[in-house]
């Protein structure tokens, strides 16, 4: 019974195994990125960034058809360009960075949908917007796993400057360190993860597996590394359960996976050990002194 429902889909079907490995890699790399995104108060900006991959992916689609390398490269270039451009706009005008991000991603979305409609069908558009994790092939798998590796090594390398840039940028500046360098290195890693995620989850949902577990983890842990350690298993669990449910129910995998991540977020919000609803409503207990 358990075997039939839980193990057999992965044992019998290669595409399910590849999807499972891809989601494991996405969970490990992405959740660490997510933790930094929320600590930098950039969750919504991350969302905007994910949407801005669309015109790049669409250009890749226009040139190479539904080819993963072309669409991934296009998406990466578009994402990094959006991040740099909003940074430059914010620096040289009095506009706040979140506003310039919003302007950039609305433009990007409109452009992207228009480019796809030039050549593709509605099915292509659906695939790019919402992904198809069950169509992950070996090339996509290699992309996702390399991204996870690069993300973990990269974050470990820039961990200290990035943490200080998050909580006390003035100190970094006084030490003569260019904080913006680490900001953009981090944003490139974030874009890379969104590119890896968009094959599986689509440009609209790519951030779900990155951000939701990270937000959920903030109800359990209170240091950067421990938050990442809590977030990664939650991301993987939502991906694994989501895959099975979408397999048995014949449902689109991306939204199901993201909904399970939301379910973990809700659980954490209600029952987490810190700042959760349970902590708020439980009878106040205070220490002796």
């Amino acid at each position: 019974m358990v075997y039939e429902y839980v193990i057999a889909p992965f044992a019998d079907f290669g595409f399910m195994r590849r999807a499972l490995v891809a989601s494991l890699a996405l969970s490990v790399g992405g959740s660490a990125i997510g933790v930094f995104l929320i600590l930098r108060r950039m969750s919504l900006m991350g969302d905007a960034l994910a949407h801005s991959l669309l015109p790049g992916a669409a250009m890749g689609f226009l040139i190479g058809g539904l080819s993963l390398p072309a669409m991934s490269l296009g998406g990466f270039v578009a994402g990094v360009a959006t991040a740099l451009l909003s940074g430059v706009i914010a620096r040289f005008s009095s506009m706040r960075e979140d506003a310039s991000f919003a302007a950039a991603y609305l433009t990007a979305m409109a452009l992207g949908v228009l480019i796809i409609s030039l050549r593709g069908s509605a099915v292509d558009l659906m695939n790019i917007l919402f992904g198809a994790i069950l169509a992950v092939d070996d090339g996509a798998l290699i992309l996702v796993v390399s991204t996870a590796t690069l993300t973990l090594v990269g974050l470990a390398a820039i961990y200290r400057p990035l943490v200080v840039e998050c909580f006390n940028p003035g100190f970094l500046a006084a030490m003569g360190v260019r904080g913006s360098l680490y900001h953009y290195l981090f944003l490139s890693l974030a874009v890379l993860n969104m590119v890896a995620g968009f094959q599986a989850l689509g440009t609209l949902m790519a951030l779900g597996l990155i951000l939701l577990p990270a937000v959920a983890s903030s109800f359990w842990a209170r240091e950067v590394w421990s938050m990442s350690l809590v977030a990664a298993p939650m991301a993987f669990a939502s991906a694994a359960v989501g895959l099975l449910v979408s397999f048995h129910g014949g449902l689109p995998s991306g939204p199901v996976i993201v909904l399970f991540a939301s379910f973990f977020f809700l659980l954490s919000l209600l029952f987490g050990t810190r700042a959760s609803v349970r902590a708020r409503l439980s009878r106040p207990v205070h220490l002796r002194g």
Partner: protein
Amino acid sequence: MTAALRLVDLTVSYDRHPAVHHVSAEIPAGEMTAIVGPNGAGKSTLLKALLGLAPRVEGRIECTARRIAYLPQQAEIDRSFPISVLDTVLLGRWSRFGGFGAARHADLHDAHHAIEAVGLAGFERRPIDTLSVGQFQRVLFARLLLQDADLVLLDEPFAAIDSKTVADLMAVIRRWREEKRTVVAVLHDFDQVRRDFPHALLLARELVDVGPTARVLSSENLLRARAMAEAWDEHAGACEVPMRLSA
């Protein structure tokens, strides 16, 4: 008296409005100098310029200090960030291990020592979001201690801090003076400046006076400073700087 800092015709402006306007002054080495003046007088901007963090600087800053430590206003720090007291204090050794090197045993030892010196022994593993404003200021002072700087810049170190904490932190500052370090602090409490700081610099965008505190903080000077700070001319023409010195 040797100067730790010499400002030569210094102008710092934001969006062309000068926040510090043609200031020339000397700050004595190994002494405690208070920077006073009304809100918006350019005090914090002056500190930022000394650190090389101000956007548009005209004139010249001559600094003999080998290493500068800086205490920012607390509003510039995200106090909800999940980081421990010990990690925050250890950052004071940045100049030694930078962004990538490891903290040595000696650094850890010094950090524990500094935390003890500011009266926070036992707080090492506490996340900073559980600290009060006063306790967090003690953490930042411990970080300054670890920086081992010969010039210490303090931006409103005692804003919203209770008297016990002020007394403890003043003891730290006096020890710096005994160790011949130069201390420059932006302060608002004139009584405290008169009591603890032998030198003062009164700023109201332009220099009002600099020298011994008793003379600088005369009621005549203070009145003049207030009048100067309130003047703000949106349509002032461009100020022709007689000679443009590179910063």
